[in-house]
Protein backbone atom coordinates (compact mmCIF):
# COMPACT_ATOMS: atom_id res chain seq x y z
CA UNK A 1 0.00 0.00 0.00
CA UNK A 2 1.28 3.45 -0.85
CA UNK A 3 2.03 5.72 2.12
CA UNK A 4 -0.14 8.83 2.32
CA UNK A 5 1.98 11.86 1.52
CA UNK A 6 1.78 15.04 3.52
CA UNK A 7 0.27 17.81 1.44
CA UNK A 8 2.51 20.85 1.73
CA UNK A 9 1.73 24.32 0.40
CA UNK A 10 4.03 25.64 -2.30
CA UNK A 11 5.51 28.98 -1.28
CA UNK A 12 4.94 32.10 -3.29
CA UNK A 13 7.93 34.07 -2.02
CA UNK A 14 7.31 37.55 -3.41
CA UNK A 15 6.36 40.11 -2.29
CA UNK A 16 8.40 39.66 0.89
CA UNK A 17 6.60 41.96 3.34
CA UNK A 18 8.93 42.92 6.15
CA UNK A 19 7.28 46.14 7.30
CA UNK A 20 5.11 46.32 10.39
CA UNK A 21 1.58 45.15 9.67
CA UNK A 22 0.08 44.32 13.06
CA UNK A 23 1.11 46.58 15.94
CA UNK A 24 0.25 44.10 18.72
CA UNK A 25 2.34 41.35 17.13
CA UNK A 26 5.21 43.72 16.41
CA UNK A 27 5.10 44.67 20.08
CA UNK A 28 5.16 40.99 21.09
CA UNK A 29 8.23 40.47 18.92
CA UNK A 30 10.02 43.47 20.43
CA UNK A 31 9.33 42.24 23.96
CA UNK A 32 10.51 38.78 23.01
CA UNK A 33 13.83 40.05 21.71
CA UNK A 34 14.40 41.92 24.93
CA UNK A 35 13.71 38.91 27.15
CA UNK A 36 16.70 36.77 26.26
CA UNK A 37 18.64 34.97 28.95
CA UNK A 38 21.51 32.57 29.10
CA UNK A 39 21.17 29.07 30.55
CA UNK A 40 24.80 29.03 31.65
CA UNK A 41 25.16 32.43 33.28
CA UNK A 42 21.68 33.36 34.49
CA UNK A 43 20.99 30.42 36.78
CA UNK A 44 23.04 30.10 40.01
CA UNK A 45 24.05 26.51 39.30
CA UNK A 46 26.56 26.52 42.12
CA UNK A 47 23.65 26.73 44.54
CA UNK A 48 21.88 23.64 43.25
CA UNK A 49 23.76 21.41 45.66
CA UNK A 50 22.24 18.24 44.22
CA UNK A 51 24.99 15.98 45.58
CA UNK A 52 24.01 16.64 49.18
CA UNK A 53 20.51 15.18 48.77
CA UNK A 54 19.43 11.67 49.80
CA UNK A 55 19.45 9.12 47.01
CA UNK A 56 15.65 8.92 46.89
CA UNK A 57 15.35 12.66 46.28
CA UNK A 58 17.99 12.53 43.58
CA UNK A 59 16.28 9.64 41.80
CA UNK A 60 12.94 11.40 41.82
CA UNK A 61 14.44 14.67 40.60
CA UNK A 62 16.40 13.10 37.75
CA UNK A 63 13.27 11.38 36.42
CA UNK A 64 11.16 14.50 36.85
CA UNK A 65 13.57 16.76 34.94
CA UNK A 66 14.16 14.11 32.29
CA UNK A 67 10.42 13.78 31.72
CA UNK A 68 10.08 17.51 31.33
CA UNK A 69 12.83 17.41 28.73
CA UNK A 70 10.98 14.69 26.78
CA UNK A 71 8.00 17.01 26.47
CA UNK A 72 10.03 20.19 25.81
CA UNK A 73 12.03 18.41 23.09
CA UNK A 74 8.94 18.50 20.85
CA UNK A 75 9.38 22.23 20.36
CA UNK A 76 12.61 21.69 18.44
CA UNK A 77 10.42 20.50 15.56
CA UNK A 78 7.05 22.06 16.37
CA UNK A 79 8.12 25.71 16.41
CA UNK A 80 10.09 25.58 13.14
CA UNK A 81 7.13 23.82 11.57
CA UNK A 82 4.77 26.63 12.59
CA UNK A 83 7.30 29.16 11.29
CA UNK A 84 7.59 27.41 7.94
CA UNK A 85 3.81 27.02 7.66
CA UNK A 86 3.34 30.77 8.17
CA UNK A 87 5.93 31.39 5.47
CA UNK A 88 4.06 29.06 3.12
CA UNK A 89 0.74 30.81 3.76
CA UNK A 90 0.62 33.74 1.37
CA UNK A 91 0.49 37.24 2.80
CA UNK A 92 1.05 36.53 6.49
CA UNK A 93 2.67 39.38 8.46
CA UNK A 94 6.32 39.17 9.39
CA UNK A 95 6.22 39.76 13.16
CA UNK A 96 4.84 36.30 14.09
CA UNK A 97 7.55 34.68 11.98
CA UNK A 98 10.28 36.71 13.64
CA UNK A 99 8.67 36.07 17.02
CA UNK A 100 8.75 32.31 16.51
CA UNK A 101 12.48 32.34 15.80
CA UNK A 102 13.11 34.01 19.18
CA UNK A 103 10.63 31.72 20.93
CA UNK A 104 12.46 28.70 19.64
CA UNK A 105 15.79 29.93 21.02
CA UNK A 106 14.15 30.26 24.42
CA UNK A 107 12.72 26.75 24.09
CA UNK A 108 16.23 25.53 23.35
CA UNK A 109 17.39 27.27 26.53
CA UNK A 110 14.65 25.43 28.45
CA UNK A 111 15.85 22.10 27.08
CA UNK A 112 19.42 22.90 28.03
CA UNK A 113 18.31 23.78 31.57
CA UNK A 114 16.21 20.62 31.90
CA UNK A 115 19.17 18.55 30.76
CA UNK A 116 21.51 20.24 33.23
CA UNK A 117 19.03 19.61 36.05
CA UNK A 118 18.62 15.93 35.18
CA UNK A 119 22.37 15.46 34.92
CA UNK A 120 22.97 17.19 38.23
CA UNK A 121 20.64 14.79 40.03
CA UNK A 122 22.34 11.67 38.79
CA UNK A 123 21.92 11.53 35.05
CA UNK A 124 19.45 12.23 32.32
CA UNK A 125 17.12 9.34 31.36
CA UNK A 126 16.59 9.07 27.60
CA UNK A 127 13.09 7.57 27.49
CA UNK A 128 10.06 6.64 29.57
CA UNK A 129 9.82 3.15 31.00
CA UNK A 130 6.42 2.67 29.39
CA UNK A 131 6.06 2.40 25.61
CA UNK A 132 2.49 3.58 25.94
CA UNK A 133 3.62 6.75 27.67
CA UNK A 134 6.23 7.25 24.94
CA UNK A 135 3.38 7.02 22.42
CA UNK A 136 1.55 9.85 24.24
CA UNK A 137 4.65 12.01 23.83
CA UNK A 138 5.17 11.20 20.13
CA UNK A 139 2.58 13.67 18.92
CA UNK A 140 3.94 14.12 15.41
CA UNK A 141 2.99 17.77 15.47
CA UNK A 142 5.39 18.87 12.73
CA UNK A 143 3.52 16.65 10.27
CA UNK A 144 0.15 18.06 11.31
CA UNK A 145 1.35 21.65 11.15
CA UNK A 146 2.84 21.35 7.69
CA UNK A 147 -0.11 19.43 6.29
CA UNK A 148 -2.12 21.91 4.24
CA UNK A 149 -5.36 20.42 5.56
CA UNK A 150 -4.58 21.53 9.12
CA UNK A 151 -6.07 24.99 9.73
CA UNK A 152 -3.07 26.88 11.02
CA UNK A 153 -4.98 29.62 12.84
CA UNK A 154 -6.90 27.00 14.81
CA UNK A 155 -3.64 25.24 15.54
CA UNK A 156 -2.06 28.43 16.87
CA UNK A 157 -5.03 29.11 19.13
CA UNK A 158 -5.08 25.59 20.53
CA UNK A 159 -1.35 25.01 20.85
CA UNK A 160 0.45 28.35 20.97
CA UNK A 161 -2.12 30.07 23.18
CA UNK A 162 -3.92 27.38 25.21
CA UNK A 163 -1.38 24.57 25.48
CA UNK A 164 1.56 26.85 26.21
CA UNK A 165 -0.63 28.77 28.65
CA UNK A 166 -1.16 25.54 30.57
CA UNK A 167 2.60 25.01 30.65
CA UNK A 168 3.05 28.53 32.02
CA UNK A 169 0.55 27.80 34.80
CA UNK A 170 2.32 24.57 35.73
CA UNK A 171 5.86 25.96 35.66
CA UNK A 172 4.76 28.91 37.75
CA UNK A 173 3.12 26.55 40.25
CA UNK A 174 6.21 24.33 40.42
CA UNK A 175 8.25 27.32 41.50
CA UNK A 176 6.00 28.42 44.34
CA UNK A 177 7.28 26.08 47.05
CA UNK A 178 10.95 25.95 46.12
CA UNK A 179 13.64 27.38 48.33
CA UNK A 180 16.63 26.42 46.24
CA UNK A 181 17.69 29.45 44.18
CA UNK A 182 18.93 27.49 41.19
CA UNK A 183 15.63 25.62 40.83
CA UNK A 184 13.41 28.60 41.50
CA UNK A 185 15.35 30.78 39.06
CA UNK A 186 15.13 28.14 36.34
CA UNK A 187 11.41 27.60 36.87
CA UNK A 188 10.70 31.34 36.97
CA UNK A 189 12.59 31.95 33.72
CA UNK A 190 10.74 29.16 31.96
CA UNK A 191 7.35 30.23 33.34
CA UNK A 192 7.91 33.82 32.28
CA UNK A 193 8.89 32.76 28.75
CA UNK A 194 5.84 30.52 28.51
CA UNK A 195 3.54 33.33 29.65
CA UNK A 196 4.81 35.58 26.86
CA UNK A 197 4.62 32.78 24.32
CA UNK A 198 1.01 32.08 25.27
CA UNK A 199 0.14 35.80 25.17
CA UNK A 200 1.51 35.92 21.66
CA UNK A 201 -0.81 33.06 20.66
CA UNK A 202 -3.83 34.99 21.88
CA UNK A 203 -2.66 38.18 20.16
CA UNK A 204 -2.17 36.27 16.93
CA UNK A 205 -5.71 34.92 17.06
CA UNK A 206 -7.17 38.29 18.05
CA UNK A 207 -5.75 39.68 14.83
CA UNK A 208 -7.21 36.83 12.75
CA UNK A 209 -10.58 36.53 14.48
CA UNK A 210 -12.45 39.27 12.59
CA UNK A 211 -11.86 37.31 9.39
CA UNK A 212 -13.09 33.97 10.73
CA UNK A 213 -16.35 32.43 9.60
CA UNK A 214 -18.38 29.65 11.25
CA UNK A 215 -16.20 26.96 9.70
CA UNK A 216 -13.06 28.56 11.12
CA UNK A 217 -14.65 28.63 14.58
CA UNK A 218 -15.65 24.98 14.27
CA UNK A 219 -12.12 24.10 13.22
CA UNK A 220 -10.80 25.97 16.24
CA UNK A 221 -13.17 24.11 18.54
CA UNK A 222 -12.07 20.77 17.12
CA UNK A 223 -8.40 21.61 17.52
CA UNK A 224 -8.95 22.74 21.10
CA UNK A 225 -10.72 19.47 21.92
CA UNK A 226 -7.72 17.66 20.51
CA UNK A 227 -5.30 19.71 22.66
CA UNK A 228 -7.35 19.11 25.77
CA UNK A 229 -7.60 15.37 25.15
CA UNK A 230 -4.22 14.58 23.63
CA UNK A 231 -1.96 16.99 25.49
CA UNK A 232 -3.25 18.89 28.49
CA UNK A 233 -5.24 16.04 30.01
CA UNK A 234 -3.28 13.12 28.58
CA UNK A 235 -0.23 13.26 30.79
CA UNK A 236 1.91 14.98 28.17
CA UNK A 237 2.36 18.11 30.28
CA UNK A 238 2.17 16.56 33.71
CA UNK A 239 2.09 12.85 34.55
CA UNK A 240 -0.63 13.09 37.17
CA UNK A 241 -3.11 13.54 34.29
CA UNK A 242 -2.01 10.30 32.62
CA UNK A 243 -4.26 7.25 32.79
CA UNK A 244 -3.39 4.86 35.65
CA UNK A 245 -0.54 2.56 34.74
CA UNK A 246 0.74 4.81 31.96
CA UNK A 247 3.23 7.03 33.75
CA UNK A 248 3.26 5.74 37.31
CA UNK A 249 6.99 6.11 37.82
CA UNK A 250 6.97 9.66 36.52
CA UNK A 251 3.95 10.48 38.66
CA UNK A 252 5.59 9.09 41.77
CA UNK A 253 8.73 11.08 41.00
CA UNK A 254 6.74 14.34 40.74
CA UNK A 255 4.93 13.55 44.01
CA UNK A 256 8.18 12.91 45.79
CA UNK A 257 9.86 15.98 44.29
CA UNK A 258 6.91 18.09 45.40
CA UNK A 259 7.15 16.85 48.96
CA UNK A 260 10.92 17.41 49.00
CA UNK A 261 10.60 20.96 47.61
CA UNK A 262 12.55 20.10 44.46
CA UNK A 263 10.44 21.94 41.90
CA UNK A 264 7.09 20.26 41.57
CA UNK A 265 3.68 20.66 43.19
CA UNK A 266 1.19 18.37 44.84
CA UNK A 267 -1.46 16.80 42.67
CA UNK A 268 -4.29 18.65 44.40
CA UNK A 269 -2.56 21.93 43.66
CA UNK A 270 -1.94 20.97 40.06
CA UNK A 271 -5.56 19.90 39.66
CA UNK A 272 -6.76 23.19 41.09
CA UNK A 273 -4.42 25.25 38.95
CA UNK A 274 -5.27 23.44 35.74
CA UNK A 275 -9.00 23.43 36.41
CA UNK A 276 -8.91 27.15 37.12
CA UNK A 277 -6.87 27.79 34.00
CA UNK A 278 -9.11 25.73 31.74
CA UNK A 279 -12.19 27.45 33.13
CA UNK A 280 -10.62 30.80 32.26
CA UNK A 281 -9.86 29.50 28.77
CA UNK A 282 -13.49 28.43 28.36
CA UNK A 283 -14.68 31.91 29.30
CA UNK A 284 -12.26 33.50 26.94
CA UNK A 285 -13.34 31.23 24.09
CA UNK A 286 -17.01 32.00 24.71
CA UNK A 287 -16.12 35.66 24.39
CA UNK A 288 -14.71 34.85 20.96
CA UNK A 289 -17.86 32.92 19.96
CA UNK A 290 -15.90 29.68 19.93
CA UNK A 291 -17.58 26.65 21.44
CA UNK A 292 -15.31 25.57 24.29
CA UNK A 293 -14.88 21.88 25.00
CA UNK A 294 -16.38 20.26 28.07
CA UNK A 295 -13.78 18.68 30.28
CA UNK A 296 -13.65 16.65 33.44
CA UNK A 297 -11.33 17.96 36.15
CA UNK A 298 -7.97 16.26 35.75
Amino acid at each position, binding site marked *: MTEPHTKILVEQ*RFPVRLGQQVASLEDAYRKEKGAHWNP*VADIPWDQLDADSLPQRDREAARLMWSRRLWAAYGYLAETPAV*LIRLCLEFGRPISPKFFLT*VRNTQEACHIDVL*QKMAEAYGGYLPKPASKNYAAILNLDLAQRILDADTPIDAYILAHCAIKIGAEAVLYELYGTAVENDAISTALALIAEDKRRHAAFGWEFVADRLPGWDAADREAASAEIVRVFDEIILSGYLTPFCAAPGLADDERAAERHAASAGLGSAGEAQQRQALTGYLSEVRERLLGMSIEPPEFAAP
Partner: protein
Amino acid sequence: MPQISTAKTILDTPEDRFPIDISNSIRSVRDLFYAGAKNQWDPRNDIPWDQFEKSKYTEEQLWAARNAWSRRAWLEYGAISESPAIQIRFARECREMDLGLFFTIRSQEEARHAEVCYLMAEACGGYIEAPPLREYEGNVVTHGVRKMALDPDCVLEALIAALVCAAEEVAFDVFKHLSEITTDPIARACSRGITRDEVRHCAFGWYYMAKRAPLLDAAELKQVEEAVAVMIQNVEMNGYHSSWLAQDDTEATRADIEWDRITYDAGLGSTVEEVEKPIFIASVQRIREQMRAWGCELPLFDHPRTGTI
Protein backbone atom coordinates in the same frame (compact mmCIF):
# COMPACT_ATOMS: atom_id res chain seq x y z
CA MET B 1 -6.01 28.36 -5.23
CA PRO B 2 -2.66 27.77 -3.54
CA GLN B 3 -0.44 25.13 -5.07
CA ILE B 4 0.12 21.95 -3.08
CA SER B 5 3.08 19.58 -3.18
CA THR B 6 2.50 15.91 -2.46
CA ALA B 7 6.12 14.89 -2.87
CA LYS B 8 7.40 12.18 -0.54
CA THR B 9 8.84 13.74 2.62
CA ILE B 10 10.30 12.73 5.95
CA LEU B 11 6.93 13.63 7.46
CA ASP B 12 5.27 10.63 5.86
CA THR B 13 6.57 8.30 8.55
CA PRO B 14 5.36 8.87 12.13
CA GLU B 15 7.51 10.59 14.73
CA ASP B 16 9.46 8.33 17.08
CA ARG B 17 11.44 10.65 19.32
CA PHE B 18 12.70 8.05 21.79
CA PRO B 19 15.29 7.50 22.97
CA ILE B 20 16.28 11.15 23.12
CA ASP B 21 19.96 10.41 23.40
CA ILE B 22 22.17 13.18 24.70
CA SER B 23 25.24 11.06 25.27
CA ASN B 24 26.27 11.50 21.63
CA SER B 25 26.98 15.17 22.11
CA ILE B 26 29.03 17.56 19.97
CA ARG B 27 30.41 19.87 22.61
CA SER B 28 31.76 22.41 20.11
CA VAL B 29 28.27 22.85 18.63
CA ARG B 30 26.69 23.25 22.08
CA ASP B 31 29.28 25.95 22.81
CA LEU B 32 28.25 27.75 19.61
CA PHE B 33 24.68 27.70 20.92
CA TYR B 34 25.82 29.23 24.21
CA ALA B 35 27.88 31.85 22.37
CA GLY B 36 24.88 32.77 20.22
CA ALA B 37 22.60 32.99 23.26
CA LYS B 38 25.13 35.22 25.00
CA ASN B 39 25.95 37.55 22.10
CA GLN B 40 22.48 38.68 21.12
CA TRP B 41 21.90 42.05 19.52
CA ASP B 42 18.84 43.88 18.37
CA PRO B 43 18.88 45.59 14.97
CA ARG B 44 16.48 48.26 16.14
CA ASN B 45 18.39 49.21 19.28
CA ASP B 46 22.02 48.38 18.63
CA ILE B 47 22.52 50.29 15.37
CA PRO B 48 22.52 54.10 15.76
CA TRP B 49 19.95 54.71 13.02
CA ASP B 50 19.50 58.34 13.99
CA GLN B 51 23.10 58.95 12.95
CA PHE B 52 22.51 57.88 9.36
CA GLU B 53 23.31 60.92 7.20
CA LYS B 54 20.88 60.40 4.40
CA SER B 55 21.39 63.92 3.06
CA LYS B 56 24.99 63.04 2.13
CA TYR B 57 23.74 60.82 -0.69
CA THR B 58 22.06 61.52 -4.00
CA GLU B 59 18.62 60.20 -4.90
CA GLU B 60 20.27 57.78 -7.31
CA GLN B 61 22.63 56.44 -4.64
CA LEU B 62 19.80 55.99 -2.15
CA TRP B 63 17.64 54.23 -4.73
CA ALA B 64 20.52 51.88 -5.54
CA ALA B 65 21.19 51.16 -1.86
CA ARG B 66 17.50 50.52 -1.23
CA ASN B 67 17.67 47.86 -3.92
CA ALA B 68 20.88 46.35 -2.60
CA TRP B 69 19.67 46.06 0.99
CA SER B 70 16.19 44.93 0.01
CA ARG B 71 17.69 42.20 -2.13
CA ARG B 72 19.80 41.09 0.83
CA ALA B 73 16.71 41.10 3.06
CA TRP B 74 14.95 38.72 0.61
CA LEU B 75 17.85 36.30 0.88
CA GLU B 76 17.87 36.44 4.66
CA TYR B 77 14.13 35.91 4.69
CA GLY B 78 14.72 32.79 2.63
CA ALA B 79 16.80 31.47 5.49
CA ILE B 80 13.87 31.72 7.91
CA SER B 81 11.42 30.33 5.40
CA GLU B 82 13.53 27.35 4.39
CA SER B 83 16.36 26.45 6.77
CA PRO B 84 14.16 25.70 9.82
CA ALA B 85 13.13 22.57 7.94
CA ILE B 86 16.57 21.27 8.85
CA GLN B 87 15.57 21.39 12.52
CA ILE B 88 12.62 19.14 11.75
CA ARG B 89 15.03 16.81 10.00
CA PHE B 90 17.37 16.73 13.03
CA ALA B 91 14.46 15.81 15.28
CA ARG B 92 13.00 13.22 12.92
CA GLU B 93 16.32 11.44 12.62
CA CYS B 94 17.08 11.74 16.35
CA ARG B 95 20.37 13.47 15.55
CA GLU B 96 22.60 14.95 18.23
CA MET B 97 20.48 17.36 20.25
CA ASP B 98 23.17 20.06 20.05
CA LEU B 99 22.34 20.48 16.37
CA GLY B 100 18.72 21.31 17.08
CA LEU B 101 19.64 23.68 19.89
CA PHE B 102 22.16 25.55 17.77
CA PHE B 103 19.79 25.82 14.83
CA THR B 104 17.22 27.63 16.95
CA ILE B 105 19.58 30.54 17.54
CA ARG B 106 20.75 30.35 13.95
CA SER B 107 17.18 30.86 12.70
CA GLN B 108 16.77 33.73 15.12
CA GLU B 109 19.95 35.29 13.78
CA GLU B 110 18.72 34.92 10.21
CA ALA B 111 15.53 36.74 11.24
CA ARG B 112 17.72 39.42 12.82
CA HIS B 113 19.66 39.75 9.57
CA ALA B 114 16.46 40.09 7.54
CA GLU B 115 15.36 42.79 9.96
CA VAL B 116 18.63 44.75 9.85
CA CYS B 117 18.71 44.63 6.03
CA TYR B 118 15.09 45.79 5.96
CA LEU B 119 15.89 48.66 8.34
CA MET B 120 18.90 49.73 6.26
CA ALA B 121 16.73 49.77 3.13
CA GLU B 122 14.16 51.80 5.06
CA ALA B 123 16.85 54.24 6.16
CA CYS B 124 17.80 54.76 2.54
CA GLY B 125 14.26 55.69 1.61
CA GLY B 126 12.20 52.53 1.76
CA TYR B 127 12.37 48.76 1.62
CA ILE B 128 11.29 47.22 -1.68
CA GLU B 129 9.11 44.10 -1.33
CA ALA B 130 9.93 42.42 -4.64
CA PRO B 131 12.41 42.80 -7.47
CA PRO B 132 11.30 45.80 -9.53
CA LEU B 133 11.88 43.70 -12.63
CA ARG B 134 10.18 40.37 -12.10
CA GLU B 135 12.46 38.26 -14.26
CA TYR B 136 15.14 38.72 -11.62
CA GLU B 137 13.10 36.81 -9.02
CA GLY B 138 14.47 33.50 -10.26
CA ASN B 139 17.99 34.39 -9.17
CA VAL B 140 17.05 35.05 -5.57
CA VAL B 141 13.86 33.11 -4.92
CA THR B 142 15.24 29.92 -3.38
CA HIS B 143 18.27 27.76 -2.81
CA GLY B 144 16.07 24.69 -2.45
CA VAL B 145 17.04 23.91 1.13
CA ARG B 146 13.55 23.25 2.48
CA LYS B 147 12.89 20.70 -0.21
CA MET B 148 16.22 18.99 0.43
CA ALA B 149 15.68 18.94 4.20
CA LEU B 150 12.31 17.24 3.90
CA ASP B 151 13.44 14.82 1.19
CA PRO B 152 14.16 11.42 2.78
CA ASP B 153 16.45 10.54 -0.12
CA CYS B 154 18.73 13.52 0.50
CA VAL B 155 21.55 12.66 2.91
CA LEU B 156 21.50 15.17 5.76
CA GLU B 157 25.26 15.65 5.61
CA ALA B 158 24.97 16.61 1.92
CA LEU B 159 22.48 19.28 2.87
CA ILE B 160 24.64 20.68 5.68
CA ALA B 161 27.73 20.67 3.49
CA ALA B 162 25.92 22.46 0.67
CA LEU B 163 24.03 25.01 2.74
CA VAL B 164 26.52 25.72 5.50
CA CYS B 165 30.01 24.78 4.36
CA ALA B 166 29.43 26.14 0.85
CA ALA B 167 26.64 28.77 0.72
CA GLU B 168 27.14 30.18 4.21
CA GLU B 169 30.90 30.21 3.76
CA VAL B 170 30.43 32.31 0.64
CA ALA B 171 27.94 34.52 2.51
CA PHE B 172 30.39 35.02 5.35
CA ASP B 173 33.12 36.09 2.94
CA VAL B 174 30.71 38.48 1.23
CA PHE B 175 29.73 40.16 4.52
CA LYS B 176 33.28 40.27 5.80
CA HIS B 177 34.28 41.92 2.54
CA LEU B 178 31.38 44.39 2.81
CA SER B 179 32.40 45.19 6.39
CA GLU B 180 35.86 46.14 5.09
CA ILE B 181 34.91 48.21 2.05
CA THR B 182 31.73 49.95 3.19
CA THR B 183 32.46 53.50 4.28
CA ASP B 184 29.07 54.59 5.56
CA PRO B 185 29.20 53.87 9.31
CA ILE B 186 25.61 52.64 9.59
CA ALA B 187 25.81 50.37 6.56
CA ARG B 188 29.13 49.08 7.90
CA ALA B 189 27.62 48.39 11.33
CA CYS B 190 24.88 46.33 9.65
CA SER B 191 27.44 44.28 7.72
CA ARG B 192 29.59 43.77 10.80
CA GLY B 193 26.68 42.59 12.91
CA ILE B 194 25.78 40.01 10.31
CA THR B 195 29.40 38.92 9.88
CA ARG B 196 29.78 38.26 13.62
CA ASP B 197 26.81 35.91 13.60
CA GLU B 198 27.84 34.21 10.36
CA VAL B 199 31.14 33.15 11.91
CA ARG B 200 29.20 30.78 14.17
CA HIS B 201 26.99 29.56 11.35
CA CYS B 202 30.01 28.51 9.32
CA ALA B 203 31.79 26.98 12.31
CA PHE B 204 28.74 24.83 12.98
CA GLY B 205 28.92 23.26 9.53
CA TRP B 206 32.61 22.46 9.71
CA TYR B 207 32.39 21.09 13.26
CA TYR B 208 29.50 18.88 12.33
CA MET B 209 31.03 17.58 9.12
CA ALA B 210 34.34 16.91 10.85
CA LYS B 211 32.46 14.48 13.05
CA ARG B 212 30.19 12.99 10.41
CA ALA B 213 32.35 12.78 7.29
CA PRO B 214 34.51 9.88 8.55
CA LEU B 215 31.31 7.89 9.09
CA LEU B 216 29.95 8.33 5.57
CA ASP B 217 30.32 5.65 2.91
CA ALA B 218 31.50 6.34 -0.63
CA ALA B 219 27.98 6.79 -2.01
CA GLU B 220 27.09 9.26 0.73
CA LEU B 221 30.28 11.22 0.19
CA LYS B 222 29.42 11.35 -3.49
CA GLN B 223 26.06 12.89 -2.55
CA VAL B 224 27.89 15.45 -0.43
CA GLU B 225 30.12 16.35 -3.38
CA GLU B 226 27.21 16.63 -5.76
CA ALA B 227 25.08 18.75 -3.42
CA VAL B 228 27.95 21.17 -2.83
CA ALA B 229 28.72 21.34 -6.54
CA VAL B 230 25.08 22.14 -7.34
CA MET B 231 25.00 24.83 -4.65
CA ILE B 232 28.13 26.50 -5.99
CA GLN B 233 27.48 26.11 -9.71
CA ASN B 234 23.71 26.58 -9.89
CA VAL B 235 23.02 28.86 -6.94
CA GLU B 236 26.10 30.91 -6.02
CA MET B 237 27.41 31.17 -9.60
CA ASN B 238 23.95 32.20 -10.69
CA GLY B 239 23.92 35.40 -8.69
CA TYR B 240 22.30 34.27 -5.45
CA HIS B 241 24.58 36.32 -3.21
CA SER B 242 26.34 38.50 -5.77
CA SER B 243 24.43 39.95 -8.72
CA TRP B 244 27.47 40.14 -11.00
CA LEU B 245 27.57 36.33 -11.00
CA ALA B 246 24.06 36.05 -12.50
CA GLN B 247 24.38 34.37 -15.87
CA ASP B 248 21.23 35.67 -17.54
CA ASP B 249 21.86 38.81 -19.57
CA THR B 250 18.49 40.40 -18.88
CA GLU B 251 17.53 43.98 -18.23
CA ALA B 252 16.81 43.02 -14.61
CA THR B 253 20.27 41.59 -14.01
CA ARG B 254 21.99 44.50 -15.73
CA ALA B 255 20.03 46.92 -13.57
CA ASP B 256 20.91 45.03 -10.41
CA ILE B 257 24.61 45.05 -11.24
CA GLU B 258 24.44 48.77 -11.94
CA TRP B 259 22.68 49.46 -8.62
CA ASP B 260 25.39 47.49 -6.84
CA ARG B 261 28.04 49.63 -8.54
CA ILE B 262 26.35 52.87 -7.54
CA THR B 263 25.92 51.59 -3.96
CA TYR B 264 29.56 50.50 -3.86
CA ASP B 265 30.79 53.87 -5.12
CA ALA B 266 28.72 55.57 -2.42
CA GLY B 267 30.13 53.27 0.27
CA LEU B 268 26.63 52.20 1.24
CA GLY B 269 27.16 48.46 1.34
CA SER B 270 27.60 46.70 -1.98
CA THR B 271 30.46 45.40 -4.01
CA VAL B 272 31.37 45.02 -7.66
CA GLU B 273 32.79 42.36 -9.89
CA GLU B 274 36.39 43.54 -10.08
CA VAL B 275 36.67 43.89 -6.29
CA GLU B 276 34.78 40.80 -5.22
CA LYS B 277 35.92 38.37 -7.90
CA PRO B 278 39.21 37.38 -6.24
CA ILE B 279 37.39 36.96 -2.95
CA PHE B 280 34.78 34.69 -4.48
CA ILE B 281 37.42 32.64 -6.27
CA ALA B 282 39.36 32.27 -3.01
CA SER B 283 36.17 31.20 -1.21
CA VAL B 284 35.52 28.41 -3.69
CA GLN B 285 39.15 27.30 -3.60
CA ARG B 286 39.15 27.24 0.19
CA ILE B 287 35.91 25.28 0.33
CA ARG B 288 37.34 22.74 -2.10
CA GLU B 289 40.54 22.43 -0.08
CA GLN B 290 38.74 22.03 3.25
CA MET B 291 36.38 19.41 1.87
CA ARG B 292 39.31 17.29 0.76
CA ALA B 293 39.77 16.45 4.43
CA TRP B 294 36.42 14.63 4.25
CA GLY B 295 37.47 12.65 1.18
CA CYS B 296 35.45 14.87 -1.17
CA GLU B 297 36.83 16.24 -4.42
CA LEU B 298 34.75 19.03 -5.85
CA PRO B 299 34.70 19.44 -9.63
CA LEU B 300 36.04 22.49 -11.41
CA PHE B 301 33.47 25.25 -11.82
CA ASP B 302 33.11 27.35 -14.95
CA HIS B 303 31.66 30.80 -15.19
CA PRO B 304 32.06 33.35 -17.96
CA ARG B 305 33.15 36.04 -15.50
CA THR B 306 35.45 34.04 -13.25
CA GLY B 307 36.80 31.50 -15.70
CA THR B 308 37.42 28.02 -14.35
CA ILE B 309 37.81 27.77 -10.60
